[in-house]
């Protein structure tokens, strides 16, 4: 096959070092950032000048853009001047960009999605007046720019994140505050389960390489990634609550820790499979290095070598991945919450 033979890595293979070293690069990037930063409010203002009906929203949007620009450049400058650690300043600026971009993405994707939110909320049998009222309430009769500014950003900026559409009209932020702790608790528990399973298993698989333990670890890593949480959940429930009756049903509130165990196991399995594999690979890499041979030559016990010399080095990539995967756990909690009928953001979302 033509692409079967892969070219050997070139001069700059890694993403991190891919940017050419160029003394002018920093200045060029600043100009680039400046022009993008000014182009957006300018475009909004121009749009407002040419569309009188939407002028208010367009000018408001331009003002918001300028405020964001000012904040971003202040952070950037603070980083350059050394008032903030440069790394943190850079991260904060990109955080702003990502947050605004992601919310714009949501706005755009929801507007582009086929389907009518009024239909989705009221159903097809709703009266014309009700539909009209909801359309007005959702600003759907307004031009896109007005929707984006008045109905999207203003609700974000006034801190309520919008209201629910039922009679209560609760601010979304209150609902989130009420439901988020349960989700965070589940995700944290899932992370703990994943770590508790993956660390011993990955370590044993690496140390006893080629034995049945290693093979068992590999099988677990393969199956664990492939098993859908919404299937594992009911099956665990069937086994531990119905058939053997060793764990309480997850809705039982008098034993909260025990009730959390099955959901956490369900949520954590996929991550623990990934981690097992990573830990095994990482430990195997470190275990062959010179400093481990030296430690062994010094006559240290195997346990001490593993904990102090191997694990410490092997854990660096693993901990990074664990941190990154926590976000995925929060998303995965949506499904787990449905399976176990737990209160949480997932239940709220659905």
């Amino acid at each position, binding site marked *: 096959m*033509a*692409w*079967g033979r*892969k*070219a050997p*890595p*070139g*001069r*700059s*293979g*890694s*993403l991190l070092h*891919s940017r050419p070293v160029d003394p002018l690069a920093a200045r060029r*990037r600043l100009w*680039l950032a400046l022009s*993008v930063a000014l182009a957006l409010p300018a475009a909004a203002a121009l749009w407002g000048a040419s569309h009188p009906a939407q002028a208010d929203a367009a000018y408001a949007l331009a003002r918001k853009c300028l405020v964001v620009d000012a904040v971003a450049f202040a952070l950037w400058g603070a980083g350059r001047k050394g008032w903030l650690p440069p790394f943190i300043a850079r991260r904060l600026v*990109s955080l702003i*960009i*990502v947050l605004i*971009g*992601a919310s714009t*993405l*949501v706005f755009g*994707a*929801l507007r582009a*999605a*086929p*389907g*009518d939110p009024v*239909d*989705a909320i009221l159903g*097809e049998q709703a009266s014309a007046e009700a539909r009209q009222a909801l359309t007005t309430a959702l600003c759907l009769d307004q031009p896109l720019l007005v929707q984006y500014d008045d109905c999207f950003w203003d609700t974000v900026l006034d801190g309520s994140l919008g209201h629910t559409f039922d009679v209560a009209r609760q601010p979304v932020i209150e609902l989130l505050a009420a439901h988020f702790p349960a989700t965070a608790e589940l995700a944290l528990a899932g992370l703990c389960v994943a770590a508790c399973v993956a660390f011993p298993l990955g370590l044993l698989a690496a140390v006893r390489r080629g034995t049945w333990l290693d093979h068992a670890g590999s099988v677990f890593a*393969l*199956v664990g*990634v*492939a*098993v*859908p*949480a*919404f*299937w*594992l959940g*009911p*099956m665990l*429930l*069937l086994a531990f609550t*119905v058939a053997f009756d060793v764990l309480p049903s997850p809705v039982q509130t008098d034993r909260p820790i025990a009730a959390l165990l099955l959901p956490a196991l369900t949520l954590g399995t996929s991550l623990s499979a990934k981690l097992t*594999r*990573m830990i*095994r*690979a990482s430990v195997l890499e470190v275990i062959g290095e010179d400093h481990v041979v030296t430690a062994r030559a010094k006559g240290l016990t195997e346990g001490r070598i593993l904990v102090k010399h191997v694990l410490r080095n092997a854990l660096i990539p693993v901990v990074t991945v664990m941190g990154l995967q926590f*976000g*995925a756990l929060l*998303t995965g909690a*949506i*499904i787990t919450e*449905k*399976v176990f009928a737990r209160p949480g953001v997932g239940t709220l*979302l*659905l």
Partner: protein
Amino acid sequence: MRRFPWIVGGGLVIALLVIAALAPWLAPYPPEQLDLVNDLAGPTGAHWLGTDENGADLLSQMLFGARIAVGVGLGTVTLCATIGVTLGAISGWFGGLVDEVMMRVIDILMAFPGILLAILIIALTRSPSVWAVIFALSVTGWASYARLVRGQVLSLRGRPFVVAAQAMGAPSAWIIARHLLPNVMAPVIVQATFGMAGAILAEAGLSFLGLGPDGVPSWGALLDQGARYFLVSGHLALFPGLAILATVLGINLLGDALRDRWDPRTDA
């Protein structure tokens, strides 16, 4: 032992493709045919995997469900890979402003939990089609392909064969298509394999949440139905789950095997 992933992974994937292609001929009953006398029956000679609460044959529904899984998996991967490879190659080759903007867009997409956006998009669609699900899963899915291809293209840019092509006056499009893309295809195919497993899992998850393609027997939807009756007849939830498990396992094994073959550096 080295051939194990090839045999198991390849076997499972081929079986899945055959089942999806031949579902109407393999299925013992039409998936919508109801046998109201035998509802919630366990596995019997007449219904190998039992029947659901309306008496529809589970095996037939699952065989047709394979079509949804394969369709959504292949569709999502094709769409994501096409967009991602094209944009990634352009971004890596031209660099500069294009690259800068593209990378920020990709950062934003990668920071966003894709399944959440898919849920939002589908929740707005009154009766989502298979295409709507593919679209919803692809909105954020292409970003990882673009980032992968960009990195590969960057590492190939300065290589002699690319410089030679440039020196001969080849246009950028020609260099990308003839010299760069063939060299980045191996990791893309590996990623596409894992992406397909991910898409099938995501589709099943959406269907389980009641947000899958409407009116077709998707595995996730079958599992959702089955989970409601899992105290009376556990097989309804058991078999669709096993089907998803076997499919994802097979595809992942195949991906591992492909990666080991083409990219020995990332041996895990």
